[in-house]
């Protein structure tokens, strides 16, 4: 099963390497990883999407906690949470498909961020389902390139 972890770490050099090498050394997989500074500049927040059964998830959580630079690990998937991803999609744009691309983009509340004679680049945010649905619809029209940020996530309400 897929799990989204929120990992609060010290904002120091080498911490990302420690987390990444923990996953590779123990054979855990990382589907996506997002990291940036928090309001407190001495801390960073990592959002890690990974897969595993109950026993593996227990190990991943414990092993992360064991790292000296890791301050807090929350498995968001155990509770209600919102997640978002930002994607940029560069389309092969021709006179015939340009309107169709824009229509699909509109449906998904996408935004055109770059345009040229042969391309059209759309920016869209959403959860995984929305983004995958949009990519599926755009595929037949000719995708040149996709760049995804990976998921960021947060618990809902005051949990």
């Amino acid at each position, binding site marked *: 099963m897929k799990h989204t972890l929120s990992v609060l770490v010290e904002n120091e050099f*080498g911490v990302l390497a420690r987390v990444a090498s923990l996953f590779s050394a123990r054979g855990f997989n990382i589907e996506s990883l997002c990291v940036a500074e928090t309001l407190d500049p001495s801390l960073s927040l990592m959002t890690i999407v990974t897969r595993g059964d109950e026993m593996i998830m227990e190990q991943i959580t414990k092993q992360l906690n064991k790292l000296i630079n890791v301050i807090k690990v929350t498995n968001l998937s155990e509770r209600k949470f919102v997640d978002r991803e930002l994607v940029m999609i560069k389309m092969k744009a021709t006179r015939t498909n340009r309107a169709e691309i824009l229509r699909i983009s509109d449906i998904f509340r996408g935004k055109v961020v770059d345009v040229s004679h042969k391309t059209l680049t759309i920016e869209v945010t959403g959860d995984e389902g929305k983004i995958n649905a949009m990519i599926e619809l755009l595929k037949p029209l000719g995708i040149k390139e996709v760049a995804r940020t990976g998921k960021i996530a947060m618990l809902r309400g005051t949990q």
Partner: protein
Amino acid sequence: MKLTGAQIFIEALKQEGVEVIFGYPGGAVLNIYDEIHKANFRHILVRHEQGAVHAADGYARSSGKVGVCLVTSGPGATNTVTGLATAYMDSVPLVVFTGQVPTLLIGNDAFQEADIVGITRSCTKHNYLVKDVKDLARIIKEAFYIASSGRPGPVLVDLPKNVILDSTNFEYPEKVEIRGYHPTYTGHSFQIKRALDLIYKSKRPVAYVGGGVILSDASKELREFITTLGIPITMTLMGLGAFPIKHPLSLGMLGMHGTFRANMAISESDLVIAIGARFDDRVTGKVDEFAPHAKIIHVDIDPTSISKNIKVDIPIVGDCKQVLKGFLKEIRAREEETEKVKGRIKPWLEQIEKWKKKHALAYKQEDGVIKPQYVVEMIGELTKGEAIIATEVGQNQMWAAQFYEFNEPRTFLTSGGLGTMGYGLPAAIGAQVANPDKIVIDIAGDGSIQMNIQELATAVQYRLPVKIVILNNAYLGMVRQWQELFFDRRYSHTCMENIAPDFVKLAEAYGAAGFRIEKVEEVVPTLKKALSHPGPVMVDVIVEKFEGVYPMVPAGASLKQMLLV
């Protein structure tokens, strides 16, 4: 007071109560070595950096103090990796300082540069690259704290040359504040109660005890716990010495080369009480068939050890000593139940006694050959079991574990987790530094002794009277045994016959004493001579070539599937 990084290093070590550094100088650490010289700080010069880490490890395991190493950058640093991995697997508190090229040159492939922080990330508890001399004192303080607290382990501190040269005001921090590191020491009292409920209900309980008990100095509490409840106890390789092996409740070691009764007891028990042990594959055998009828209580300071290999029914995260104290308090309050459980498990103890009679640890004494097990037994008799025993890895290690009677903690130094050949001699040297008045013996094989033989020069230089007993079977014996059992006796690259050095001459060349034993009747008198010799001694014992270690549970088989003698 303004001090250079090198001076801060010395001052910080003094503040930490460090008595000795095991090390090897080089370009990047010259300034520290200069301060060592000026301060007349005690330093043991090893002959290879791997030896420095193992020596610090033997020092730490035998004394309970933190072992300290100092090596230079590049190859000096990379040579420590095996020692670090060895200490990491067995949870030994070490602080290893490595030299590094100046910060401005880091990443430039400079002379003797290695990314040692990157290389050792997965074989240290934590590591640091000091980028500014202002951080040095705090980092050293943290390094010692992390190494020795919680589940102990090695910490590496990388010191760029400019950091050693730069100056700053020196103030050694009194306290450590690390936001993400707060080990749990006291076990949850409710969990302890629940665990005790299970113990009081059990009919066939067995305690399974590992190195954690020794690391937390909990042997006294363990003895009281076991004898008060009258529960049988088995120990892992790392746990040997935690409880007297001669005690009637002791089943000896369990696992791949464990005793018949220990492995049977685990397999038939209805409650396993694991204390400071981590269900290693050499202990469990086939995981699905490990203690199939038992509920499992697991006491460990490291939450990651719990439910890693085996699903645990009652986890108790905490320090073995504290948790056992918690148990004892609770047990005292429930005296009646304690008496009841003692009565209930009587048939279980009788069953264990039957297993013991059926297959006790044994070997066949034959005419004309020296059995390695006999040599180990004689070492035990001559030292009254009061020596510190280090081992290499392989058959020598297993025979030492099986046939030397360990009764006290911190008397058995062996690489259990990583299985590092070449560990024994430098570890014995470190143990002798920590215990100048004790007899320290390295029980070795003719293969592994050659992996760090250069440290004989260290023993000779510092007049450390370690005794090396080589059980010389002219083979890499443990590998040969596997080839005999599982590869149709195709002895691929395991025979060392006629190509080994003359160990007696070799010892003499290093300035140590050398003896050879070729006949059974020479074993006792020559060992006596070796033990009473005031300096380092190497004894080459020519033993039966094809002797195997038994019982043996083949890798991946269940504990009940033992090959017996």
